[in-house]
């Protein structure tokens, strides 16, 4: 898959995991396993970028005597997901058009 495309997809994937509840790095990766494979070193810059863009906020909470970073989706992040869905509706239309031409 195209790297730039995968990056964009992963950003939205990570955000969508946070829709249910706040989560932390390792859990985000495990939750995404059924959808797309992602490594720690790939997730890290994605989280940083989403944080810089204001799509998620970060807070630390204690867990088993150590601090763990939790990520929480913001309104900006929700909007990003909605934008993604809208945009991909168009892309799906194009996809179907191309697919139809190919079959004909």
């Amino acid at each position, binding site marked *: 898959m195209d790297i730039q495309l995968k990056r964009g997809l992963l950003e939205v994937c990570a955000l969508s995991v946070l829709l249910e509840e706040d989560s932390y*790095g390792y859990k985000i990766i495990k939750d995404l396993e059924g959808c797309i494979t992602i490594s720690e070193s790939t997730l890290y810059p994605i989280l*940083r970028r989403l944080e810089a863009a204001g799509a998620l906020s970060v807070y630390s909470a204690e867990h*088993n005597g150590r601090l*763990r970073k939790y990520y929480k989706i913001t309104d900006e992040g929700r909007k990003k997901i909605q934008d993604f869905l809208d945009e991909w509706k168009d892309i799906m239309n194009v996809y179907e058009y191309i697919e139809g031409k190919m079959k004909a």
Partner: protein
Amino acid sequence: MTKVEFLDELKKQIAEYPSGETEQSLEYYSEMIDDRMEDGMTEGEAVASLGKIEDIARQIKEELPLATLVKQKTKEKTHGKRLPVWAIILLILGFPLWGGLVITILAVVVSLYAVIWVIDIALWSLVIVFAVSSLVGVIGCVLSAVHGAFGSALFYLGAGMVCVGLGIFLFLGMRLLTKGLCHGTAWCFRQFKKAIIG
């Protein structure tokens, strides 16, 4: 590899990045190892599953903003740009030659500057001469008139008037010139400072 070894090695490889960046990255990977071990992996497995340290370091670098990278580059460049030893030795050995040249050039510049001011002072003296001459002209005119020498009186008056006129012109011109010289000097100093600060 243990967690501590892994973090030490990673720290070494990303140490030159901005300190906040380094710390955050280390925290992130430390947390990842802890979470994996909590999930049932051994320490060695958890570290191994993160992949190569070189790849991690490169990935972190790729995400740094361009401005940070450029800054990093220039910092490295100036660091590496120390003069080699032979150049320093040559500089010291050659001092009698280049030292003399530098002193000579400095002396010439200072002399030229002094000459400009000397001309300025000389012209100001001329203003004074004109002022005194016009005064003499007036006095001469009065004295000649008292003695009945009207021709001489007229000459003194004319000469005095010429001196007054020239004096006023020169005075106005000199005021501008001196002011300009002061401004020029201040400007030169500012440029010099700018060149040093860089």
